[in-house]
């Protein structure tokens, strides 16, 4: 390769990196900047980019104008609860599909993927009606159950691909040693599957944390709103306190950002493996 060609290819790479990074981070960075500006700076024309006099006042406002901590608590409770529920159901199902020669395996897998593509809007009306009749609107349970099902396909597919790759000898050894199937699953397979289970848990958590449609319909009471729903209520009918909204958004994004920074390889790997490869 000639020197000039090498240089132009390096230039191209720099541009590609720049575009990817700006595309990924600019919206979050812009919200962060907005959250540090005062209302007066915000309404200047032309607008400022870098905050001139950074202030944390918007963050105090974000916690006092709306019960932001409460929203976070609700979201955490529902996301963790539904993720655990997903894991219990998905682990059992994945082991059965991957390791036991079940009849009708193809049908089960197809059914799971059908659920993965299931339009949540279809659930909205009957769930709303049912939960209303059972007086379960504005309870944790109303959202936990549908969320657990929502993540079931991805979690199961991820674990199926993991269990399938495990060496048969390990399990055979445990069985020969007098372990029952269940014992082998519990004592040998499950400890080895822990990383995959954890990854599935993160994916289920993020799914639940992000859900909006059912959350706004089933848990609409102020005390029971989840984060994505609650944050919409900072705006009045005609007022949009963007610095405060941005501060609340930043607070809401931080846990997600932490999660993906800490577990980026797992999450990408998980998305790719359980990811909808079928």
């Amino acid at each position: 390769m000639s020197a000039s060609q090498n240089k132009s290819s390096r230039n191209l790479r720099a541009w590609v990196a720049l575009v990817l990074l700006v595309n990924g981070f600019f919206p979050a960075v812009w919200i962060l900047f907005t959250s540090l500006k005062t209302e007066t700076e915000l309404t200047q024309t032309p607008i400022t980019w870098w905050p001139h006099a950074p202030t944390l006042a918007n963050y105090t406002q974000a916690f006092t104008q709306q019960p932001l901590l409460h929203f976070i608590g609700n979201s955490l409770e529902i996301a963790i609860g539904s993720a655990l529920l997903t894991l219990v159901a998905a682990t059992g199902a994945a082991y059965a599909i991957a390791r036991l020669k079940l009849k009708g395996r193809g049908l089960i897998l197809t059914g799971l993927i059908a659920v993965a593509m299931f339009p949540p809007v279809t659930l909205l009306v009957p769930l709303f009606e049912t939960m209303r009749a059972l007086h379960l609107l504005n309870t944790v349970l109303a959202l936990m159950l549908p969320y657990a099902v929502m993540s079931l396909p991805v979690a199961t597919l991820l674990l199926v691909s993991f269990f399938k790759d495990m060496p048969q000898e390990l399990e055979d050894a445990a069985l020969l040693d007098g372990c029952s199937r269940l014992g082998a699953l519990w004592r040998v397979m499950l400890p080895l599957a822990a990383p995959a289970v954890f990854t599935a848990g993160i994916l289920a958590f993020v799914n639940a944390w992000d859900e909006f449609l059912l959350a706004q319909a089933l848990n609409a009471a102020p005390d029971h709103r989840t984060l994505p729903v609650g944050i919409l209520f900072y705006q009045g009918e005609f007022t949009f306190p963007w610095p405060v909204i941005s501060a609340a958004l930043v607070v809401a994004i931080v846990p997600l950002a932490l999660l993906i920074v800490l577990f980026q390889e797992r999450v990408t790997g998980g998305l790719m493996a359980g990811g909808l490869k079928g």
Partner: protein
Amino acid sequence: MTTTTRARPPSATLSTPRTVARPRKLRALNDQLLGWLLLLPAVLLLALAVVYPVARLLHDSLFDIQLSGAAPVRFIGLQNYQDLLADIDARRAAGNTLLITLITVPLSLLAGLLMALGANLNWRRRWPIRLALLLPWALPMAFSGMIFAWFFNSDHGVVNDLLQRLQLPTVRFLLSPFWAPLCVCLATIWKTSSFVALILLAGLQTIPRELHEAAEIDGASRWNRFWHITLPLLKPSIVVALIFRTVSALQTFDIPYAMTQGGPGHATQTLAMLINTTAVDYLNVGYGSALAVLLFAVSLGISALYLRHVYQEAQ
């Protein structure tokens, strides 16, 4: 996925293997039983949160159900579906949904493909690019709606600021029935393209490098290599992304809800938003169910294509 196998092989491998204690047939039977037992929680969850609701949806769509008053539930057959055909709101919402689908699906696929190709270059440090793909994926849809509403804000938005700097006229984006749907589309494309990129990246990484190297030695240009090697081998991933994106585009709700509340007028109201308004806000459950059945049928038709393929693979 990489996993570290830390556990030592159980000691049993060291002892002399005993002959299998139980007849093979019994074990097979036991395995079937255990299998179904392990599947039970998943099956229960599915029955509770999918099968029952869908049955109820189909059932309710044949009734007149108003939860707001004391009016009794009345069987009206296909009346809801007949009303639907003449409903201007439904037609407009269907049109908006179709427009959003037709614009965002191809463009988010194209953007996702470009992003995946960029991310697949052999970078010295992978994590910044990986995070740049993961962050938009992890954000709630509703947040991206709000963030883009702020971008497109008439007076203080960054988009109008850029237009001004370029000496172009500013636009009241979200107040214009022409621009607002396009802004919703842009927010959707931004939010969904990174997910597409992650799926396609998985596909790209299964393509052996040797293929490209061999083609390069044979003198194939970069474009030829992309067109004759990458694209055909990526096709399965593209099909998956295409179908999932189409089904989710038909459900569009969060982004227009957070960004424009369906406005201005009803310019960005989607079918999912109309269903929500009808059933949850106005408590007209029967008609809302009929609308949802319509959307369900269309999505199912698209999913069926994919499911047939998956089922054949699994057999």
